[in-house]
């Protein structure tokens, strides 16, 4: 599994994306996983599942990403996704104040229902549509000069995030600004103890213990098993 010389411990982290429809959840994932962006991305139906690895200096984190549908009408899926999730990315659209209200609902819901140690990041997306130089430079086509579409101030969202103990970022899935930083920050914020470990050498002792337990259904079957499989 490890492709570099020195094998690092590798852990998987279940991450769920939540937020109102069209705030850019899938676009953030697409940027993170494929470094790509689509101008007219179709709404997610049901949910999507993707994986991506993130290399930290001391370990590799494999994100198992559940991208939910903001349009989901019956809110019946969400609990399945955030159950046992170690991290959540709650996304709003910087140009749409109602999406921050929805995001706050989600944060409250996660604090009520999700795993206690869950790491939550609040992410204001579509920074390229604002006048903020960091995100808007170069490709800020939609925003453009002088025309600032920002409707949620950094201060407002940031102070809310601080109160609730959330990681906070403003991103642009379109330009890629800050996207990898969000995932890296989450990877760093996951407490070592809550890491379940995927197979791989060099795991730390706490993690190695978990590794000992996981049964790999796809692994080499023991040829000496008492009977050859008949099927």
């Amino acid at each position, binding site marked *: 599994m490890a492709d570099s010389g020195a094998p690092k411990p590798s852990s998987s982290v279940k991450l769920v994306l939540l937020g109102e429809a069209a705030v850019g959840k899938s676009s953030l994932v697409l940027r993170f*996983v494929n470094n790509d962006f689509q101008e007219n991305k179709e709404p997610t139906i*049901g949910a999507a*599942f993707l994986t991506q690895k993130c290399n930290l200096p001391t370990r590799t984190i494999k994100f198992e990403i559940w991208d939910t549908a903001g349009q989901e009408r019956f809110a*019946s899926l969400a609990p*399945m*996704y955030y159950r046992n999730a170690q991290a959540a990315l709650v996304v709003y659209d910087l140009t749409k104040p109602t999406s921050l209200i929805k995001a706050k609902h989600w944060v409250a819901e996660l604090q009520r229902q999700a795993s206690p140690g869950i790491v939550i990041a609040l992410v204001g997306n579509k920074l390229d549509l604002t006048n903020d130089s960091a995100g808007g430079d170069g490709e800020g086509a939609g925003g453009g000069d002088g025309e600032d579409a920002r409707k949620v101030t950094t201060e407002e969202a940031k102070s809310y995030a601080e109160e609730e103990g959330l990681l906070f970022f403003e991103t642009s899935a379109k330009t890629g600004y800050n996207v990898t930083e969000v995932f890296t920050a989450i990877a760093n914020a996951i407490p070592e103890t809550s890491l379940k470990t995927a197979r791989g050498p060099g795991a730390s002792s706490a993690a190695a213990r978990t590794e000992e337990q996981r049964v790999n259904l796809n692994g080499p079957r*023991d040829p000496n098993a*008492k*009977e050859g499989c008949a099927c």
Partner: protein
Amino acid sequence: MESLADTLWDVVICGTGLQQSLLALALSRSDKKVLHIDPNDFYGDAEAAFSLQEVESWVEKVQTGKEGLFRAASVEKLEGDTGLSFPRAYSLALAPQLIHARSTLLSQLVSSRAYRQVEFLAVGSFSIFKPSSDPSQSPTLVRIPSTREDVFSTTAISAKAKRGLMKFLKFVLDYESTPQAEAWQPHTDAPLTEFLLKEFKMDKELQTYIVTLTLSLDGGINTRDGLAVIHRHLSSMGLYGPGFAALYPKWGGLSEIAQVSCRAGAVGGAVYMLGTGVKAMNDQEDPIVLELTSGDTIKTRKVVRANESATDESGINRLVAVVSSPLKSLFQSTVEGAPTPAVAVVAFPAGSLSTAAGEASQSPVYLSVHSSDTGECPANQSVLYFTTISKPASQDLLQEALDSFLAAVAGDTVPQCLYQLQYKQLRSSAQSQASGSIFDFAPPRPALAFDDSTLQSVHDAWKMVLGDDAIEEEYLTFADREGAMDDDEVYD
């Protein structure tokens, strides 16, 4: 987005129990329009797993008679600050079934790629509870040797018994070939114990070891079924790694498989609604018209539901207890390279327990001990699931089993029971069946190990829903979805 009423659904699946959820998984790559609803506000039906909060609202529902096949539910907590963690630190399973390595369920989870979302843990030792003859001594647990290596090394049985056991294990591994079959077929419907006595001269104790491996709730399993189950056990040994024959899905057993299957259904585009049931159905029309409890009236070509009617009062009693000890001694791996087990099984043979009133147990009591590695309780605690066939004294006997078990595993201190849930789950003799465009799943059987025959009805339901579009080779056989692969791309 189209509204519910404007869509002509290909199938409405009611209930999110294991069978319905596996059906959703099976349909997840078809282009059928699937609406999956459940009157409960949780996933999993009779296979759900609950936080302590959810346990309490479930118990209330059972008490008002609104929970299908469940009866007589109650919760008991130690008063005061007991070391019980907060409610969401627990996930108590209504269906803590073991899954044998050779179960078709596992191969279907692999071929459908759903296994990638499930973490499987090893089921470790099977032990027998032995009451002490001297009341001043503690009862003990004796591990059942179930592989040849085990039999060689055990000190629990005599050399003569070892030879008998060895001979039997060898027999079972090949029990379907001619010479063996000729030996057991005359006994096919007789109790397995009788066969063991007659053909292998096994004493009561060895018979008990063998019957325990069958996990037969009434202890009276017949020779044919008994041999089949033991064969499954032995041939499962080592299949996915050394030292274990069965697996357990982390976070609540079959509940997790149901949820993973529903997720796959959702990824495939099915629409999910919890807290919504069917209020009325008109199946004289084509398509069928359903009135939902949400107030929506919808049209669908097919309906798949669960039959939840009890046919009689027989069933099981279960006691689920959270205890204040990690019970480490039960979770040692005995074979080199084996994963640390997270589940251990203990059998209390018939007659090994008695109520305060002096009534002895007539059927075995089984106990599945789950370590915190199952995600069902916090570290340094364990969850105990006791099961026995329903009899008038069952509740008392389960309490007795709990106390005796805690005495048997006591070190310097006896572990404390912090929380307990009791209930009765009725059995139903109803069969799964299709009639016209409606399919009814039989209720799940409250067994100790997952029974593959459940999978047949999922397959039947799938065929009914797809009709001529059903391609047998593609049943639950899917490629990984794009992006979901376990690839080696590393993002720096």
